C-alpha cells in the first residue's frame, strides 16, 4: 500500500504557500552545483523548470523526444493563460481565480494546490512579459484580456491565437540561454523508456535515442517528469501525434501511483471527424465562444438543410437557453455534454449528424468581418484549410473531442510523487484541475509548476540527500532497467504478425470513446474492460513492426507507445467504473440529476483515487487520498 501523504501545510489557506516556503529546507548555493537533476520534457512545465533550476545553480539534464525543445505540444495551445491580475478592474482576485478553478474542477482538486496556483499566476505574466512574450496589448500599451469559459471576469492573457507558442518560446529562450552557458545539457530525440529506482528513490532514467536506437543510462539526484498528457490513448484527439504516456506509464509500473486516470477532458469546439484516415482532431479555440453562438435546429428535419435557410425562430441556441448566466461560455464538460445530448436527440448537423453550429453572424454584424478577422483570423483560416468552408459566410461545424487529461501521476504539495525523488509537473501530474479543467488554466499550471513551485520544493528533498551521493550507472538497478527497455523493443519486433500499429491504436481509441468517453455507464465500462485485454492480446500476437531497434524506426516508436496505451486504457476504464458518481469530465449516466447534470457523491467519493501497480496481470490497488475542504463549501455546481 503506497503512502499518500499530501504534505499540505497547516494554517489559513491564503498563508499556506508563504509559510511553506519559509519552512522547507534549502540547499545552500555552494552545494547546488553538486546535485544533478534530470528533467524529462521541455513543454511549458519542463522548459520553465529546467531553465529555473539551472539558474539556481543545479546541474540539469533535459531530455525530449522531439528534435528540439521548442516543438513540445504546448506550442499548440491557442487561446490564452489565466492570471488574477485584475487589470480589468472587474472584480478579479486570487481568491476568485482559486474559487472558479475549484468549482470548475467540480470539487475534486486540492484546495491548497489550487490556491497556490492562483497566487503564482500573477508572477507568471510578469515573467513572460519580461522575456519578451508579445502579448496582446491595448492602444495605451497595457496588456489586453479576453474571457474564457467558467469565469465571469476577463482574466485571460493571450498572444493572438498562438498563446502556447509564445509562452513556450519564452520558456525555450530561457532554456537556450542556460544551455548556451553550459548550465543545462539538452538531449533531443531522446525518449525516456524507464525509470530507475535505487533504494526506493528515483535516481535515474533509461533512454532510447530515436535517431540512432542507442539505449543509455543516466543517473541523477532527482528526476522530474514534465512529459505532458495521455489523451492520445483515445487515438483521435487534439494532441500532437507524438504525445504519449510512456514516461509516466513506465514510472507507474515502477511504483508511482496514477491518480484519477478517468478524468479526461472532452473539448466542445473541435472540427468534426471526416473519415477513417483521420489522424487528429483540430481544436477551434474556446475563445471563439466569446463571440460565436452555438446552436442546432429545433426540428430534426432541418438538420440537413443549408443553415442559412433555417429561420431564426427555428434555431435552438441551447447553451444560452439552458445556462442563461454563462450562456455560450459554460464550462467545457457542461458544453460538450450538451452538444452530445443535442446530437443524441437527432438534432446534430453535418454529414454524420455529429456536429453543432458555431455561428459568427451576430459578431460579424456587430464588428464587421474585419473585426472578427482581427480577433480570430488564424482560426478561421485553419477551419478553411481543413474543411474547405468559409466560416465568415456559413457557421462552423464543431463537435467535442478529447483534449486534456486531468488525471496523471499522484503528487504531494511539493509535486513529488509517492516515489521519493520523482517529481511530476504540468499535465503529467494530477494536481490542480480536479475533474475538469477550465480553459486557459493548463498553461498557467505548467508555468506555475516550473517557474515558481519546483524551484522551491525540490530543495526540500535534495537537502535530505548527501551531495555527490547519486548512484553510479553500473548498479544492477540500471542494468535491469536497461534490459527491460531492450526487451520490450525486442518482443515487439519479434511478433511478426500482420497488422500495423495504427490498426490497434484506432481500435483502442474506438473502444475508449464508446465505452469511456463523454458518457459512461457500468455496462459500457465493463464491455470496454473485456475488449481492451482482448485487443492487447491480439496486439502481442498479430502486430507487425518492420526493421530493427538499432536505428531510426518510427514504427517501433509508435509500437512502444501504443503498447503502453493498451495498458493505460484499461486503468482508465477501471477507474471510471469504480468511481460511482459523476463529476466534471467523468459522467456516469447512472448518476445524474433529472436535467442531465452531474450528480456527485461527496460522502463516498470526495477523494483522489491513486492506483498502484501490483504486477503483470494483477488488479492494481486503489489507494485514496481524502479531499478536505476547509475554505470552500462543496456544493452542486451550477452555471444556470
Amino acid at each position, binding site marked *: 500500500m503506497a503512502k499518500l501523504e499530501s504534505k499540505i501545510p497547516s494554517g489559513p489557506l491564503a498563508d499556506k504557500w508563504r509559510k511553506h516556503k519559509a519552512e522547507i529546507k534549502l540547499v545552500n548555493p555552494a552545494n547546488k552545483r553538486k546535485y544533478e537533476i534530470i528533467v524529462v520534457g521541455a513543454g511549458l512545465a519542463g522548459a520553465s523548470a529546467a531553465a529555473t533550476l539551472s539558474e539556481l545553480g543545479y546541474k540539469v539534464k533535459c531530455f525530449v523526444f522531439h528534435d528540439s525543445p521548442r516543438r513540445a505540444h504546448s506550442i499548440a495551445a491557442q487561446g490564452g493563460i489565466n492570471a488574477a491580475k485584475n487589470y480589468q478592474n472587474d472584480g478579479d482576485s486570487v481568491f476568485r481565480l482559486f474559487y472558479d478553478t475549484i468549482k470548475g474542477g467540480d470539487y475534486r482538486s486540492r484546495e491548497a494546490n489550487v490556491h497556490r496556483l492562483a497566487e503564482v499566476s500573477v508572477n507568471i505574466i510578469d515573467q513572460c512579459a519580461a522575456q519578451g512574450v508579445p502579448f496582446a496589448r491595448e492602444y495605451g500599451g497595457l496588456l489586453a484580456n479576453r474571457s474564457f469559459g467558467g469565469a465571469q471576469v476577463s482574466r485571460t492573457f493571450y498572444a493572438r491565437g498562438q498563446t502556447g507558442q509564445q509562452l513556450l518560446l519564452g520558456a525555450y529562450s530561457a532554456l537556450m540561454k542556460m544551455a548556451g552557458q553550459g548550465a543545462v545539457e539538452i538531449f533531443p530525440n531522446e525518449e525516456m523508456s524507464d525509470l530507475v529506482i535505487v533504494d526506493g528513490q528515483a535516481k535515474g532514467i533509461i533512454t532510447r535515442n530515436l535517431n540512432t536506437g542507442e539505449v543509455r543510462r543516466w543517473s541523477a539526484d532527482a528526476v522530474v517528469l514534465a512529459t505532458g498528457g495521455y489523451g492520445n490513448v483515445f487515438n483521435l484527439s487534439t494532441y500532437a501525434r507524438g504525445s504519449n504516456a510512456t514516461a509516466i506509464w513506465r514510472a507507474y509500473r515502477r511504483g508511482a501511483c496514477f491518480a484519477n486516470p478517468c478524468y479526461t477532458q472532452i473539448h466542445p469546439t473541435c472540427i468534426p471527424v471526416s473519415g477513417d484516415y483521420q489522424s487528429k482532431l483540430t481544436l477551434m479555440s474556446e475563445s471563439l465562444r466569446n463571440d460565436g453562438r452555438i446552436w442546432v435546429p429545433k426540428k430534426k428535419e432541418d438538420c440537413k438543410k443549408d443553415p442559412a435557410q433555417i429561420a431564426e425562430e427555428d434555431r435552438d441556441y441551447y447553451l444560452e437557453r439552458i445556462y442563461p448566466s454563462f450562456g455560450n461560455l459554460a464550462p467545457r464538460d457542461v458544453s460538450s455534454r450538451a452538444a452530445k445530448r443535442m446530437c443524441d436527440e437527432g438534432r446534430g448537423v453535418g454529414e454524420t449528424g455529429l456536429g453543432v453550429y458555431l455561428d459568427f453572424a451576430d459578431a460579424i454584424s456587430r464588428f464587421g468581418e474585419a473585426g472578427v478577422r482581427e480577433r480570430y483570423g488564424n482560426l478561421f483560416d*485553419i477551419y478553411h484549410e481543413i474543411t474547405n468552408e468559409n466560416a465568415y459566410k456559413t457557421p462552423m461545424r464543431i463537435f467535442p473531442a478529447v483534449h486534456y487529461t486531468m488525471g496523471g501521476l499522484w503528487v504531494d504539495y511539493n509535486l513529488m510523487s509517492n516515489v521519493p525523488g520523482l517529481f511530476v509537473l504540468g499535465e503529467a501530474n494530477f494536481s490542480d484541475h480536479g475533474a475538469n479543467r477550465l480553459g486557459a488554466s493548463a498553461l498557467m499550471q505548467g508555468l506555475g509548476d516550473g517557474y515558481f513551485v519546483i524551484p522551491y520544493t525540490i530543495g526540500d528533498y535534495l537537502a535530505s540527500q548527501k551531495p555527490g551521493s547519486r548512484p553510479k550507472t553500473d548498479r544492477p538497478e540500471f542494468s535491469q532497467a536497461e534490459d527491460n527497455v531492450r526487451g520490450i523493443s525486442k518482443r515487439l519486433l519479434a511478433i511478426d504478425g500482420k497488422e500495423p500499429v495504427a490498426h490497434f491504436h484506432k481500435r483502442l481509441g474506438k473502444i475508449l470513446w464508446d465505452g469511456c468517453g463523454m458518457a459512461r455507464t457500468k455496462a459500457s465500462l465493463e464491455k470496454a474492460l473485456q475488449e481492451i485485454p482482448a485487443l492487447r492480446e491480439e496486439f502481442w500476437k498479430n502486430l507487425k513492426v*518492420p526493421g530493427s531497434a538499432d536505428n531510426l524506426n518510427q514504427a517501433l516508436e509508435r509500437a512502444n507507445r501504443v503498447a503502453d496505451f493498451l495498458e493505460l486504457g484499461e486503468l482508465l476504464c477501471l477507474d471510471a467504473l469504480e468511481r460511482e458518481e459523476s463529476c466534471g469530465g467523468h459522467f456516469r449516466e447512472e448518476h445524474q440529476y433529472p436535467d442531465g447534470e452531474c450528480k456527485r457523491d461527496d460522502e463516498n467519493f470526495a477523494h483522489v483515487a491513486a492506483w498502484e501497480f501490483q504486477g503483470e496481470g494483477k488488479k492494481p490497488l486503489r489507494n485514496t487520498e481524502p479531499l478536505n475542504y476547509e475554505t470552500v463549501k462543496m456544493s452542486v455546481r451550477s452555471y444556470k
Partner: protein
Amino acid sequence: MVAESSTSTISVTLRVWRQDGPDKPGRFVVYKATDLSPNMSLLEMLDVVNNELESKGQDPIAFAHDCREGICGTCSMVIDGKPHGPHKGVATCQTYMRSFADGAVITLEPFRAKPFPVIKDLITDRSAFDKIQQAGGFISVRTGAAPDANSIPVPKDAADLAMDAAACIGCGACVAACKNASAMLFVSAKVGQYSLLPQGQPERDRRVLAMVASMDDLGFGNCTNQYECSAACPKLISHDFIARMNRDYLAASFRQALSPKSAAASGGA
C-alpha cells in the same frame, strides 16, 4: 460553400526520396496511393501508404511531424520542388489532397541544405537552429526578477509587429528555399521580435552580433535578397525583418567598435 464530397476519391503516384542514413546514398522510390479522399491531408495519405508498407514488413517512409496543425514546425518536406508544398502560408501538414489532381505525380524530398543533414528519408537534422538561439535568442531575465507586467507599456503597433516576427515556427523552410542556405529570415525574426520591444533593448547589440556570428559559424550562407525565404515561409514572415536586422547589425557593429567599455566589466555569457 460546401466541402468537396468525400465520395469521389483520387489516386496519385508518389516519388519519394528514400535514404537509409546520413552518410548513405539516397534515391527516389515510386509508390501508388489510391482511393484517397480529397479531404485527407498529405500526411494522412502517407500514413495510409506507411500502414500498407508496415503490414507487408517493409520499412515505412520516415517523415517528421507532430502537431499536424501548422504550429510546431516539425513537418518539413519539399513537395514538387517547393518547401511545404504548393500553397502559400501553410506547412506540409496543412496540405490537403484536394490540392492535387487525380492521377498527379507528387515528388516528396527532404529539406535540402548543407546545415540540415538528412537523418533518414524525409527527416533532416535542424539542431543548428537551437545553437543560434543559444548564442543570443533570449532576453536575460532570471525567474522571479521581473517587474509588474504593466509597469512597462508596449505600444500596440510594436507589440503587433513583434508578434508577426514571433510567429516563426522554426521549421527551416526559409533555409531550404534559399539557394545559399541562408538562415537570415529565421534569425531576423527573432532579432526583430526583441528589438521591437522595450524589454529587448539592453541586449540589443549583443544579441544581433552574437546570433549572426553563430549563424555564419554553423555554415549558413549569405542573403542575396532573392526572398525565396519569405515566399516559402508557412507563417508568411516578411523579409522586411531581414532589412531591419541588417540595420541593427550595422549599428551594433559601430557601437561595439566605438563605445567606451568599463574596465571592470566582466565577460560573462
